[in-house]
């Protein structure tokens, strides 16, 4: 079976001794090869426990864990962990080892030869953007928080594990550095295609990092697991809705691009054409603003009927100048932002040479949102229909 999940949790349960309520209850979940699955939920929901069950830092009380089809519920946990990268919020670099030695920890345990280890250390330092010659022989205390977490990631990647577990890896880092580390990590992941389980309590981080997101409730029960787009478009219940919070619609617009829209016709007038023709179009379309283009079809000005009729100066000096312009690869979120800055409320779409392609208006966006919701709902209805 080629689409066998990389990690398969089968009714995994954790009950702590002396407690009657399970911390994790009958959790079944598949994580595909090469995806980032984000576990997100309110504090105390058991998301970290769930993560630590996967590399058996916490031993499950019931259920089975499979790696690439192999049941690892009962293998030696130390050997299992050497096959899994593990990154924690506090990083936990070894202060008495050099940065190079830190990164070499797992390869050394696996008995790699010296030359291979040295080459791997330098490769990883390069990969996380720290000059090997400069950093290899230094000690962790000389690193900033952001650099230390880069080394934490490099160390987890040491022996090139197929699976990485990351427990709020960027949680303790200032927002600006965090954003940069997230972007770097996504870029790295696009190359490496590791199977990653990522825990966070921050829904925005989950949306940014996740190929899929699992929203967990009490006892690590999955409330919804899906792509960020679909979760934002269609939270299945109040719990999920509350958790993703206000602004979910806006966040959802980050996933859609202008190129996916059918750009509607809009009244335009090219310089040198008969202004009367423009006014006629304005009337036909029952619009307020006429878009003036230059001879190369680059947008010039917004004109009202009065601006056209008044005469006097050249057309390109009348009306209002254009503030909102986006290219087709812009997200709808950015497009909305542009639109809000434009007094006409209309955003011009231009190609990469600046030529007019069409316009986006607010009702185009509401239409997209409506469509996304309908699609997501259809998906869930279909899911329900097949499960019944």
């Amino acid at each position, binding site marked *: 079976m080629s689409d066998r999940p990389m990690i398969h949790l089968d009714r995994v349960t954790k009950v702590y001794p002396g407690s009657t309520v399970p911390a994790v209850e009958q959790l079944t979940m598949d994580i595909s090869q090469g995806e980032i699955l984000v576990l997100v939920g309110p504090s105390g929901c058991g998301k970290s426990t769930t993560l630590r069950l996967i590399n058996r830092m916490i031993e499950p009380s019931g259920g089975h864990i499979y790696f690439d089809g192999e049941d690892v519920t009962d293998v030696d946990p130390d050997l299992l962990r*050497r096959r899994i990268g593990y990154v924690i919020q506090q990083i936990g670099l070894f202060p008495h080892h050099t940065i190079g030695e830190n990164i070499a920890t797992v390869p050394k345990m696996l008995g790699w030869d010296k030359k291979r280890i040295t080459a791997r250390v330098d490769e990883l330092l390069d990969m996380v953007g720290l000059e090997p010659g400069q950093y290899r022989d230094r000690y962790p205390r000389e690193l900033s928080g952001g650099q230390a977490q880069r080394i934490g990631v490099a160390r987890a990647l040491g022996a090139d594990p197929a699976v990485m577990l990351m427990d709020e890896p960027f949680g303790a880092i200032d927002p600006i550095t965090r954003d940069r580390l997230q972007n770097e990590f996504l870029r790295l992941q696009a190359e490496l295609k590791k199977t990653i389980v990522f825990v966070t309590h921050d829904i925005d981080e989950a949306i940014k990092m996740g190929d899929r997101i699992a929203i967990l409730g009490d006892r690590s029960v999955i409330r919804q697991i899906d792509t960020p787009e679909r979760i934002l478009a269609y939270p299945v219940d109040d719990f999920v809705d509350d958790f993703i919070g206000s602004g979910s619609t806006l966040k959802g617009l980050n996933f859609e691009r202008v190129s996916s829209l059918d750009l509607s016709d809009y009244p335009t007038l090219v310089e040198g054409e008969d202004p009367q023709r423009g006014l006629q179009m304005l009337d036909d379309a029952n619009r307020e603003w006429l878009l003036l283009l230059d001879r190369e079809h680059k947008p010039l000005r917004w004109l009202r009927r009065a601006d056209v009729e008044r005469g006097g100066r050249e057309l390109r000096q009348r009306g209002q100048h254009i503030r909102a312009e986006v290219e087709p690869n812009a997200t709808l979120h950015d497009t909305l932002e542009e639109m809000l800055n434009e007094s006409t409320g209309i955003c011009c779409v231009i190609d990469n040479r600046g030529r007019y392609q069409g316009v986006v208006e607010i009702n185009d966006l509401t239409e997209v949102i409506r469509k996304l919701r309908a699609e997501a709902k259809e998906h869930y209805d279909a899911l329900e229909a097949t499960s019944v």
Partner: protein
Amino acid sequence: MDGLQSWFSYVFDRWDDILEATLQHARLVLIVVVAATVISVSLGIYIERRPTLRNAVLSIAGIFLTIPSLALFALFIPLVGIGNPPAIMALFLYSLLPILRNTVTGLDEVSPAIVESARGMGMNRRQQLVRVRLPLAWPVIMAGVRVSSLLVVGIAAIAVLVGGDGLGSFIQGGLTRLGLPGSVESVWVGTVFIVLLGLVLDIVFSVVQRFTSSPGLRI
């Protein structure tokens, strides 16, 4: 001035005896401290994660320190006779607590995140101890060793009372002949050379500490 001059001439006249006693004294201290380090560190590792045992052992090691030294030295005579052996045993008991306590504290203070990441990378308990926890606790343990060595250098002067050797012989000899020529000088020789030996040993151990700790741990 006269006193100082006669002291120096005393030292000069008996230089060979003084040197020999100092070396004997140093040997006594080193035997005790090395043995105490080996035993205390092993014991410390064993008790660190066993709360009941740990409290019991630390209390007992503390009680040893409160036993009057004169009595403790004498207590071992029936067991091992007179000479250096009872002295070594008594000094050994005194030197346990600082090393033991610092071993436990040093291991305690290793950040849980570091142990978690060691475990998360697949180190077994022994590897976690040998490669991570002990090296990180080592500077703290060595600080305990230095305290013990200073403690033992001073108390070792009493070894002479149970037939042991060392610089205590100058102090005892001086005291028994108090009033006679050279008696005060003799007491001072014992005292001064014990203090000097203490300083030298402390410097030696601080150098050992520096060279056996990772440069990554220097502040």
